[in-house]
């Protein structure tokens, strides 16, 4: 078993975490998130050209001539693949996409629309709303579950750890202007589940040890528990990260954002179950008596 003094760095890492959270919140509030068409509405076209001489600016120019509002064009993996996004959605014109195809064929020659996503303003605001509800609901459900299973001090620690992970992951998405779409919501929910899972494993051990040793202070006890579960924490993070890395590298462009969010979430989730969840137990001065008292009730 390892014997690392994690508890010596509680303060330092707490300061780091708080700074990261503040930076993330500042970015989230002032810069905001880069919503994709799912949540902002508009049109996304994945386009493959047959002509290698077509470059981003040529494609942007041709789209700009069509009065589609703000147009953004990006390379998408391949040399000949592009993602084009613009504000306008088809509203009531069923010929909308067809017209774009017609106009485009005169300017850039042979091409293929591999994917078209077109989301109206009503649907996008509904999707955003249901995404927010889903994330809030899952946080509430986790809180409820852990509240039933553990003492309130543990619940607080676990929930703060999850908030920490979600805020920092979203913060990174804001800082680097990475796109938030439906699959990112799925990633955030999975992060919530994973972070909780990781925290629960350590907490279960803390509680077990609290029962066993009535004379060891919580500061020491959390450190023992972290060390006892450390190899599991590391092995599980590694296997999960290996799987996620494989999705990130080989799973295609569409899953890139999702797997990146998950990778970040797993890293921060592992970190927070050690450095957020445990210091909170210390701060709340959890002891042998907390457990015994609760169990008598």
């Amino acid at each position, binding site marked *: 078993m390892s014997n690392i003094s994690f508890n010596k760095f509680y303060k330092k890492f707490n300061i780091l975490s708080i700074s990261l959270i503040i930076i993330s919140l500042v970015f989230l509030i002032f810069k905001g998130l880069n919503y994709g068409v799912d949540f902002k509405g508009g049109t996304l076209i994945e386009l493959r050209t047959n002509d290698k001489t077509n470059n981003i600016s040529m494609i942007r120019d041709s789209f700009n001539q069509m009065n589609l509002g703000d147009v953004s064009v990006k390379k998408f993996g391949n040399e000949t693949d592009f993602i084009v996004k613009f504000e306008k959605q088809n509203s009531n014109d069923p010929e909308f996409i067809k017209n774009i195809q017609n106009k485009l064929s005169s300017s850039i020659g042979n091409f293929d629309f591999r994917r078209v996503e077109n989301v109206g303003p009503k649907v996008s605001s509904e999707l955003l709303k249901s995404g927010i509800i889903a994330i809030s609901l899952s946080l509430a459900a986790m809180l409820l579950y852990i509240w039933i299973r553990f003492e309130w001090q543990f619940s607080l620690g676990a929930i703060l750890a999850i908030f920490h992970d979600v805020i920092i992951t979203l913060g990174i998405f804001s800082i680097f202007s990475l796109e938030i779409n439906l699959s990112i919501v799925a990633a955030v929910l*999975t992060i919530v589940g994973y972070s909780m899972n990781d925290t629960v494993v350590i907490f279960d051990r803390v509680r077990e040890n609290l029962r066993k040793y009535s004379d060891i202070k919580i500061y020491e006890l959390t450190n023992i528990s972290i060390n006892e579960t450390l190899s599991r924490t590391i092995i599980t993070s590694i296997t999960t990260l290996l799987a996620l890395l*494989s999705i990130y590298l080989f799973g*295609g462009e569409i899953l890139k954002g999702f797997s990146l969010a998950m990778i970040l979430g797993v890293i921060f989730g592992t970190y927070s179950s050690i450095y957020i969840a445990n210091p909170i137990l210390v701060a709340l001065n959890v002891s042998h008596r907390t457990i015994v008292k609760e169990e008598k009730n």
Partner: protein
Amino acid sequence: MLYFSKLRIISVIIFTIIFSYFALSNFTKLDDNFFSKNINLGLDLQGGSYLLLEIDNKPVITQRLQAKIIELKRYFKEKEISLKNFSLNGETISFEVKEKDYEKVSKLLSDKESDINQYYQSYKSHEFDVIENNKLFNLNYSRYGLVLLKNASLDQAIEIVRRRVDEVGTNEPNILKRGNDRILVELPGLDDPNRIKSLLGKTANLTFQFISQNSEESFGTEKLSFEDGSREAIVSKRIILSGDNLVDAKPTMNSQTNETVVSFSLDRVGAKKFGKATSTGVGKQLAIILDGKIISAPSVREPIIGGSGQISGDFTFQSATDLALLLRSGALPAPLNIIEERTVGPDLGQDSIDAGILSLIIGFLLVIIFMIYKYKAFGLIANLALITNLFLLIGILTLFEATLTLPGIAGIILTVGMAVDANVLIFERIKEETKSEKNPIIAFDAGYTKSRTTILDANITTLIAAFILFFMGSGPVKGFSVTLGVGIITTLFSVYFIARLLTSLYVVKNKEKEQLL
């Protein structure tokens, strides 16, 4: 106890074999229907179109309210009550009554047996909410009245949408109600949804009206433009014939003009009406109007009494085919708007499948290699459990014919990564136990027992996330929640039945060895 009864071992093996069989049946082509179940591929993997249509009920509501006013007038006239100052303001009908009739009218409108304002026993509500203000009555659709109206128009619209989609002949379209004003249309394998979109975007209200010579007709007139936008014409509001009377329509070639036309035939009532109108209107121009635009306005040369006719109007064969299709399938009760569209081309779908399978294989191999490196023989056991887990997961998805999406594949890969967690928890616990307990059998047993609550806790939290995602998520993301959720169940099974069985066999056989784990 590290003891398994024979019955338990056999049932675990049978169970595993059955689901593995289902999993493998995805890759074989069997003729037998029951055993050759397949996972459904989501639209993002097989390619296809997802369209969400919203029905615009405003015109329907206005129409109904106008009809209601006529009904109210007639009804109270029969009862010899005179109403005045009828008006329609937005979605409110208002009228005034004389002092002496006030109570009578009020009773007629709010009685549960009312003939004019129907009462729905099941909703405890009338069709209309009545607000009385002195002598003034205001009628509004009640919440349930509106719901019923919307449901009725949605039912009607969905029928028409189904007919139109079927006529185009795509394979296995999926047409579903969403709420009370939306229709979801899924068209698997459809590469180019443009044609269907333009067919669904048309209400297809067809009418025949005479072009008016003088603007003082008794029915009133309206100014309409031609389909091609070239000119306008004044048209009488009197409707000679509408699309309802059509029984068939098809594109044909007019042998005299060598033009593509749409020929139609009418039902008995329609034929009679048409015959009558055309015999009195010889020499006049008859406008053929679709959705408020004039397609063409030929002159009536002779009475048309056979109950069939032709529509001309610069058609290509394709546009004539489409118009005929629209006329055959009937008019929508209200316009439909496409509020969400997601289309994936078949080659992108195939690329996604390839990338998904590649990353699954690589992720799987990485995890397997890591586990053997870390736990040697027990790593092998964990890996066997992992492989069974994968077969069970795919087998269950196949058995229930679940829909596999690209995020769903990501969910499977993630399951592979997280599934070893339970075995790792157990193995690490066993390692700890062997320090204080010399008898390996007792130590292994304790490892399993003591880690159980942790494993349950940890998996329930992920299961909660998957559940919420399943109920809140849509489309591809839902597919992720399915594989993640089912993955947790199969993980627990493979850990507690497969891995535990193998571990106990191994431990009992090698109990004399030092340092088993």
